[in-house]
């Protein structure tokens, strides 16, 4: 399968002290590589401080890595100043309430990428908004309401709609369901799976829930303290983990079924 998005040895460090005589740096990414094809899902697994959120921000163009390459359809987009990230790679945040402007209607939020891309007139934008809202399972008349009038699951649907407005090829989802209730989580996961089938989307799915990762992904990248501990197909990594950290992580992820079937 041809690669859609691939990363080669991405590195990133932050300055942690402002003292010019004692400059200290914290390495948050110590060389991360992967490849991802259209219609595939790559899960990034790690605990807090593992660097997975930094990786997400680099993938959507919110930050630049110190070194390494990021290839999108075989061109290095880190070097390409004309590349418009927001048309191709979009992000879904963990907390849908915080990622929507509280003082903007849903329409205003969804229109934003269309306006920035200078696409269409007000009527065609309106149509597109109705179309995408329908795609994520919301009624078009919701467009004129404010975010606080929606439930958490509905807000996450809106956030997904916003990511889909410009027909991107890759969606980076940073813990998209961990702030939601269990029964609502399943709705959102199902929606993401349906959208992937319909639109041939590639997902980078950042999560700490190995059950979800196994259910949802093709490949998995295990990270710990900025290091890439393990990378491969989900089935292989979970059945034959190579690194000590992955084994520890797998053991800690209890499932009630494991207990019942024991």
């Amino acid at each position, binding site marked *: 399968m041809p690669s859609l998005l691939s990363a080669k040895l991405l590195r990133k460090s932050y300055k942690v002290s402002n003292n010019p005589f004692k400059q200290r740096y914290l390495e948050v990414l110590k060389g991360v590589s992967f490849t991802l094809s259209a219609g595939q899902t790559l899960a990034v697994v790690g605990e807090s401080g593992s660097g997975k959120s930094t990786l997400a921000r680099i993938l*959507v*163009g*919110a930050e630049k890595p110190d070194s390494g390459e990021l290839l999108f359809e075989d061109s290095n987009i880190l070097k390409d100043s004309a590349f*418009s*990230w*927001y*048309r191709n790679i*979009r*992000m879904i*945040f963990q*907390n849908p309430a*915080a*990622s*929507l*402007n*509280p*003082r*903007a209607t849903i329409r205003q939020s969804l229109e*934003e*990428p269309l306006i*920035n*891309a200078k696409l269409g007139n007000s009527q065609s934008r309106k149509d597109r908004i109705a179309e995408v809202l329908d795609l994520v399972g919301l009624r078009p008349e919701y467009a*004129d*309401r*404010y975010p*606080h*009038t929606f439930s958490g699951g509905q807000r996450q649907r809106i*956030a997904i709609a*916003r990511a889909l407005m410009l027909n991107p090829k890759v969606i980076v989802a940073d813990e998209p369901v961990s702030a939601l209730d269990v029964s609502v989580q399943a709705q959102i996961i199902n929606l993401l799976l349906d959208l992937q089938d319909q639109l041939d989307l590639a997902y980078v799915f950042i999560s700490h829930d190995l059950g979800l990762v196994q259910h949802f992904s093709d490949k998995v990248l295990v990270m710990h303290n900025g290091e890439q501990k393990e990378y491969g197909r989900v089935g292989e990594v979970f059945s034959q983990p190579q690194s000590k950290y992955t084994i520890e992580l797998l053991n800690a992820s209890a499932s009630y079924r494991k207990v019942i079937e024991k």
Partner: protein
Amino acid sequence: MTLSNTKLAWQVFRRNKSAMTGSLILLIIVLMSLVGPWFAPHDPAQQFSDKILTPPLWYDNGEFLTPLGTDDLGRDMLSRLLHGARLSLKLTIMVVFAAAFIGILIGAAAAFLNSGLRTLLMRFMDLLLSLPSLLLAIAIVAIIGPGLPNAVYAVVIVLIPQFVKVTQGAISEELGKDYVMATRLDGAGHTRLLLHHVWPNIIPALIVQLTFSFSTALLDIAALGFLGLGAQPPIAEWGTMLSEARAFIQFAPWTMTLPGLAIFLTVLSINLVGDGLRDAFDPRLNR
């Protein structure tokens, strides 16, 4: 249930009794200042030499023609108060909006400056804020000379740092939020982000600051007038009226009480409204 945040805030505000009382008083004062000068029975500078220090109606020897009495030069207190209301409110509004305009521009610029320059600017604002506003105003008037226009400039300068701090603080806080990141990732540029997305979110903070600045400005203008550094006699200005009446407090208390009461009521009502707005816009209450 599709309520905008503004409507929600209004619902909270409406239930706040003291804020509603404040709004009512303020409304009456504003109406008086708008239409008052036409209803004022006399010219504020006209001296009735036979009626010097006539007491108000509720005294035994009060006169119907001068319902709130006259001052030491025989000028009608009611007319002077009404004209004073218009002057005070007009000046206050001018001063606050000028200061807000300059302060918000500086504050917005500061939010996007690099951290070194921003620190320098903000510490300078802190320095200005560490002085009592009146003291700073007096110092400025001492340099540029007394008189109403100079007092106005001084109060404008005094009010600017508050706006810079509030604007910079509010913008910085918003910039750290997820929705700003999300909007950037929607492809929005700096200007669009600031004007379309961040600006509506900091308006509540600015409105609250605006109301508190109104009361500071009103008090400072009156205080400068009282100290003889602001409006000069014979202009009918509340602070100046207070100062002129100082000598007569023993035997003509109304000459001092009435302008004092006018200042007190105006400042109180503005502060009540400000408190109410702050509560109404408090995000913790906005569900």
